């Protein structure tokens, strides 16, 4: 346990360095998540609304999950060179499928009776989307964003091997910072990821319509990515 007291000492002694690396870490995360959001959510929602492209929309996340982040960042170095942009592109590639699949599944899986009822009330397609499908799909869309954010924060740690700055700088440089430094930075990354998880869990709750909140007390759902295993196989 002595190693951990040294690690805490390291954190206390190097707050300025850790803080600036944390900001770099968040900048990288924010840029990657922002770009993925802008592309993935509208695409997933549109496809889900039209009930088109299920094979691609569902399986893209399985392929995305299979991409080893370390390899992706490394290959990015070969193609795009060292630095922020390369790592950001790699992170977008990793975050995009998670958001797309969840957005698609969320909108596509909205209770068709509700959609029928909305149409019966005379709503136009875009009204059905904005007033019925999106509110009902929002919790699951947010679940995808939340998973992606935590995943990107975790992977941004690896950015250090490709020349972009993040808290990983310290973790992969044991020669300079010694074990206490590595452990201290690891603690910071872990705390950062947990805070992000909590923040987005709160956001997800906040956007969940009250009627749906009661439901989630019941049976636990199958974890993201493959909410309906039957359908993934059959499509």
């Amino acid at each position, binding site marked *: *346990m002595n*190693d*951990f007291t040294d690690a805490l000492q390291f954190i206390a002694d190097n707050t300025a360095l850790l803080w600036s690396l944390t900001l770099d870490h968040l900048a990288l995360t924010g840029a990657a998540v922002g770009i993925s959001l802008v592309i993935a959510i509208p695409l997933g929602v549109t496809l889900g609304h039209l009930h088109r492209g299920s094979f691609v929309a569902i399986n893209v996340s*399985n*392929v995305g*999950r*299979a*991409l*080893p*982040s*370390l*390899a*992706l960042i*490394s*290959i990015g*170095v*070969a193609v795009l060179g060292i630095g922020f942009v390369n790592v950001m592109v790699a992170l977008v590639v990793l975050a995009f499928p998670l958001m797309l699949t969840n957005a698609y599944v969320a909108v596509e899986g909205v209770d068709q009776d509700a959609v029928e009822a909305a149409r019966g009330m005379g709503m136009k397609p875009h009204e059905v989307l904005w007033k019925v499908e999106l509110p009902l799909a929002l919790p699951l869309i947010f679940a995808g964003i939340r998973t992606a954010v*935590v995943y990107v*924060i*975790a*992977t941004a*740690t*690896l950015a250090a*091997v*490709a020349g972009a700055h993040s808290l*990983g700088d310290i*973790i*992969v440089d044991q020669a300079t910072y010694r*074990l206490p430094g*590595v*452990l201290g*930075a*690891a*603690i910071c*990354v*872990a705390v950062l*990821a*947990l805070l992000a*998880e909590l923040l987005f869990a709160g956001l997800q709750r906040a956007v969940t319509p009250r009627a749906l909140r009661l439901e989630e007390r019941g*049976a*636990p*759902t*199958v*974890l993201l*990515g*493959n909410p309906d*295993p*039957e359908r*993934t*196989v*059959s499509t």
Partner: protein
Amino acid sequence: MTAAALPLAAAEPVIPDFGRGSTCVRENGAFCWDWVSDHWGDTLRPALMQHLALTAIAISLGFAIAFVLALAAHRRGRLTTPVVLVTGLLYTIPSLALFQLLVPFTGLSRTTAEVALVSYTLLILFRNTLAGLAGVPEEVRDAARGMGLTQRQVLWTVELPLALPAIVAGLRIATVTVISLATVAVFVVNEGLGAPIYAGLQQTFKTELIAAGALCVALALIADGLLVLLQRVLTPWTRVARSR
């Protein structure tokens, strides 16, 4: 490593012939197939095998733990929340950080890598197994009890078979995730496909890196496909139901 290095030492001359590289390798081509075939035996195949071992051990251990926890939580609902909290916490900690945080306890060893990899499978496998069990219709359970099945028989002959699709879905996600994450284990133990990827990162010659990365993706996709096949074999009734 040593087991793979021995036959190599026996087959190659004592002083390696460095001038023998192919044109592609000498000119530092983008991707050299002949490098891959030359180094399949001494670099890529051992790394692939280590990667398979890392993954297989992590998934087996993780599934054993998660399965027992899920059965317990299925019987006593109160267990669900604490288990989800703890496994969720483990799942959230970034892999590179978790590997390092375990070093003071288990050192720079394979054990460290396995503990971290197992901890990433728990949440996925636990939640999917539990959700599969909870998704069994109450009427089916009633009917089984009405036929005189004991609680244990209901679990093993009715509930678990019906939960299989959800369990396999969890296994698929966990397996693909572990195959991808095991590359990061290179920072604590020089094994698996992470080793050639990391080595490739440190040099300008990129074939090693790309080949190892591609192998890793291929491994994940093949494992995923095999699990889909496994599910089809184990649950023939789902196909009949779908074709109607």
